[in-house]
């Protein structure tokens, strides 16, 4: 692939650079020459200046035959200039036809984002601070591109608001309803999910240890556990409301039932993960049951236990939200979703979904971090 010439542009894939140059050349002069078509507020034209400076720099360096500035920078500056213009131009064409160069610009932005991610996944961005940067930048650029296309398509084609609101409307709704969202998160996540998750996981773990100690429990409980894991447990939500009332306790109870069995099944499986030789070794030390459990079998079971903790973090969130559909006080994420969708306030529904997604990711991420810290020795984590 690489050519003997020592130039950044040619060192990376030649075709991609060509594509990049064509995009720039065809699009750069459109909005400048025909201002009515891509019609952002005037100050936005300023955003094109860094891109122009970059292009001039490329031409100068090329003329002088010295090293060129990195392509990534050019692609990034291109996106910086054109994405805002695309977004603000949307304002104009309710009912009218889209400006003539509009879709080419959108396509160029999407292509440029793709190109940028491709470049950021290259060999230069595997290690060091560049690697760390790319690890966060690539998914961010990827999701921002999806949001951008969502926004542009929904608004350009006038998709009815109740079917799919644009992300900007959802963002505005989130910003305007922070107290309500905070109350819902407090009710559903901080009360129902956390209490239920902690109790369900702890109970599953303790029963797994008992099942390990007493064979009859293992024989009797595990088939039930496997069966219940396959059931849509959420169906018990109305029963839990009858048992524990309308408030968060009944939701926590649903979460307890949902998280108990995955933890039980995984921990029991994990307790068999220690090898024969390691067990024999403990036997030669005349180690007691509890010593063997704490020094060998539980550490060896940790990957399994964290697997259950991760599965359960998702289950708990789903369980608590859906359980609220079956009766709750007038607060909670599930309650908000079910009532606002009845009032056609879909932006609020999406706002709750976005908050749930964020909370779920943070929850999952914290557990995954703890997993890395605890099972650092496992080949899947130490990268062996």
């Amino acid at each position, binding site marked *: 692939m690489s050519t003997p010439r020592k130039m950044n542009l040619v060192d990376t894939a030649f075709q991609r650079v060509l594509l990049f140059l064509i995009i720039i050349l065809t699009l750069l002069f459109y909005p400048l020459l025909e201002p009515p078509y891509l019609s952002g507020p005037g100050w936005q034209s300023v955003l094109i200046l860094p891109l122009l400076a970059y292009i001039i720099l490329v031409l100068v360096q090329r003329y002088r035959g010295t090293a060129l500035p990195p392509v990534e920078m050019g692609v990034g500056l291109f996106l910086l200039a054109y994405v805002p213009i695309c977004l603000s131009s949307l304002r104009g064409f309710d009912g009218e036809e889209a400006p003539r160069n509009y879709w080419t610009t959108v396509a160029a932005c999407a292509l440029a984002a793709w190109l940028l991610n491709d470049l950021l996944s290259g060999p230069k961005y595997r290690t060091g601070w560049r690697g760390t940067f790319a690890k966060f930048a690539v998914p961010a650029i990827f999701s921002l591109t999806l949001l951008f296309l969502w926004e542009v398509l929904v608004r350009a084609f006038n998709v009815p608001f109740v079917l799919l609101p644009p992300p900007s409307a959802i963002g505005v709704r989130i910003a305007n309803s922070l107290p309500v969202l905070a109350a819902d998160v407090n009710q559903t996540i901080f009360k129902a999910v956390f209490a239920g998750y902690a109790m369900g996981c702890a109970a599953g773990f303790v029963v797994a240890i008992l099942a390990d100690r007493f064979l009859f429990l293992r024989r009797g409980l595990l088939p039930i556990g496997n069966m219940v894991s396959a059931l849509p447990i959420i169906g018990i939500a109305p029963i839990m409301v009858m048992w524990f009332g309308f408030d968060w306790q009944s939701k926590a109870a649903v979460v307890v039932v949902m998280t108990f069995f995955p933890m039980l099944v995984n921990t029991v499986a994990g307790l068999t993960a220690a090898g024969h030789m390691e067990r*024999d070794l403990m036997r*030669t*030390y005349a180690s007691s049951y509890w010593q063997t459990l704490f020094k060998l079998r539980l*550490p060896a079971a940790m990957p399994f236990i964290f697997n259950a903790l991760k599965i359960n973090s998702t289950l708990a969130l789903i369980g608590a939200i859906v359980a609220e559909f079956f009766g709750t006080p007038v607060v909670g994420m599930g309650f908000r979703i079910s009532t606002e969708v009845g009032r056609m306030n879909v932006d609020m529904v999406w706002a709750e979904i976005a908050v749930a997604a964020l909370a779920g990711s943070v929850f999952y991420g914290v557990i995954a971090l703890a997993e890395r810290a605890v099972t650092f*020795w496992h080949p899947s984590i130490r990268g062996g």
Partner: protein
Amino acid sequence: MNALASPTQPATATVTAPVIEATGLGLTFETGDGPVHALSNVDLAIGKGEFVSFIGPSGCGKTTFLRVIADLEQPTAGRITVNGMSPEEARRQRAYGYVFQAAGLFPWRTIERNVALPLEIMGYSKAEVAQRIARTLDLVNLTGFEKKFPWQLSGGMQQRASIARALAFDADLLLMDEPFGALDEIVRDHLNEQLLQLWDRTNKTICFVTHSIPEAVYLSTKIVVMSPRPGRVTDVIDSTLPKERPLDIRETPEFLAIAARVRDGLRAGHSYED
């Protein structure tokens, strides 16, 4: 052929009750496709302070015999005593240290924590643990690797760490199953010397499984030759070498004569099989 324990050893002068005494010992594994006679009619007595090597073709029951001594496997015929007790009682009294064929270090513990494992279980004091870690790691030349994790070490270093782990606590009996099988020749020579010195200094009884004739002859006061199907003892050779053994003793005619006898014993076992 049944071997007799001769109470008078050229290298060990102690005349006491045998540490290990097996009479008519047999072990048959019931497997899916019929019984496997791993050990059959083994008679053997090992005195205190002896260094006994077990040598024989693969599958002749060397590991199984060590596991029976360690109470990891129950014999199906005959009887065996360890320190005059049943193997189970001996195990409960932590009478032996066992070095497995593979290192078997716990990947979540550093090397020093791995060596500390038996000490923690047996309830040694903190100061005692620290002092023993330093001493045994020094013995196997792993000083400086205390804080490393097993997967950061080479296979040979891991094996040495597992030897350190078995040496960390005071057991008079050391059972070693091909401990140096994975090591290069030079390290092996070095560890052989170290092991002899350790044995000399501590007066431990050592049962040592190996596939190497020179290693067996160099180390042992007694060489047990075994043959497979069914696993049994075909010859027991008492070494006439002096207790003081520099590495170049391996070139002496006396050494070579013993090695030749071991080789003959192994050959006999093989031809029996065909």
